[in-house]
């Protein structure tokens, strides 16, 4: 079983990814983002995205109700259904799901993000939080009948409200539920880079045990990505591959070890 995370960047070659997946003879589940589409939509609608940086340096998008509307349009609507359409055009009988649908991904609303605002510490409450569990029965029911789940945010919280969360964390709880042996994370870079500005500085391999070191050095969104990946190994992932989602054959390249292989 493979979990394929399709990044939300505009240069991700979604078609190439789906064509590769259609040729796989292994079961897989897709999780995807849509941040490029969301940012553009928010801009077009005159509601530019606001990023909160927590007192500890973690970045997150301020998710008020309006932002959740935009996420539903960009993630659950346009991106999810165009991926489902591409799947159907390549013989993959996909079913698109957000965490709300059938309570596929259950989470916990955050108690408030601590941020600094004009030198004061403030608590910002919004519709965001952390995923905690997966409705594994629904996924197995669908997969057992030949359907391929294509999952994205928002997820559902303890008050049955739609909340935003980090797609990498969704992959973590999904991994905890289905114990995939390989997780492929397709991003707009060759893989993890020693120097984020230099695409040639690919780190071809990282021992799972060294992740914590890398995490300490990273900041903002990259710190979060590292931590989410470290947690994957707590749920018996055997191999995590961070690979280039922009190439012609992102999935088959990744499976050949092209990118950052963490095991």
């Amino acid at each position, binding site marked *: 079983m493979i979990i394929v995370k399709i990044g939300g960047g505009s240069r991700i070659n979604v078609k190439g990814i789906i064509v590769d997946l259609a040729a796989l003879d292994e079961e897989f589940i897709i999780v995807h983002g849509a941040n490029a589409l969301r940012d553009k939509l928010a801009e077009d609608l005159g509601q530019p995205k606001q990023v*909160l940086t*927590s*007192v*500890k340096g*973690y970045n*997150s*998008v301020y*998710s008020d109700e309006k932002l959740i509307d935009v996420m539903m349009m960009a993630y659950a609507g346009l991106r999810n259904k165009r991926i489902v359409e591409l799947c159907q055009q390549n013989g993959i009988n996909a079913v698109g799901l957000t965490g709300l649908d059938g309570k596929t991904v259950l989470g916990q609303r*955050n*108690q*408030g*993000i*601590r941020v600094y*605002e004009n030198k*004061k*510490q*403030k*608590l*910002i*409450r*919004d519709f*965001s*939080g*952390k995923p905690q569990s997966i409705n594994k029965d629904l996924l197995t029911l669908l997969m057992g009948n030949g359907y391929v789940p294509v999952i994205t*945010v928002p997820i559902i919280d303890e008050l049955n409200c739609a*909340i*935003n*969360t*980090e*797609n990498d964390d969704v992959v973590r709880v999904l991994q905890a539920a289905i114990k995939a042996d390989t997780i492929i994370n397709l991003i707009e870079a060759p893989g993890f880079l020693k120097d984020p500005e230099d695409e040639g500085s690919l780190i071809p391999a990282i021992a799972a045990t060294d992740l914590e070191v890398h995490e300490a050095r990273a900041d903002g969104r990259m710190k*979060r990505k590292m*931590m989410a990946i470290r947690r994957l190994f707590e749920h018996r992932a055997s191999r995590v591959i961070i690979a280039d989602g922009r190439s012609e054959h992102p999935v088959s390249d990744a499976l050949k070890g092209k990118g950052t292989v963490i095991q």
Partner: protein
Amino acid sequence: MAECPVCGYEFDLPPNTEEGEIISCEDCGSELEVTGKDSVQEAPAEEEDWGE
């Protein structure tokens, strides 16, 4: 007058305090969240990181 829910200490909120601000109780030092003009509640424990 606001009252600290942890130790009962009563105190005035400084004029420019904003809702959502985190202050500590002068008496017991607990972290409190300002919820209104004269009202506070215990601030939720800080969690590692949030949202996307």
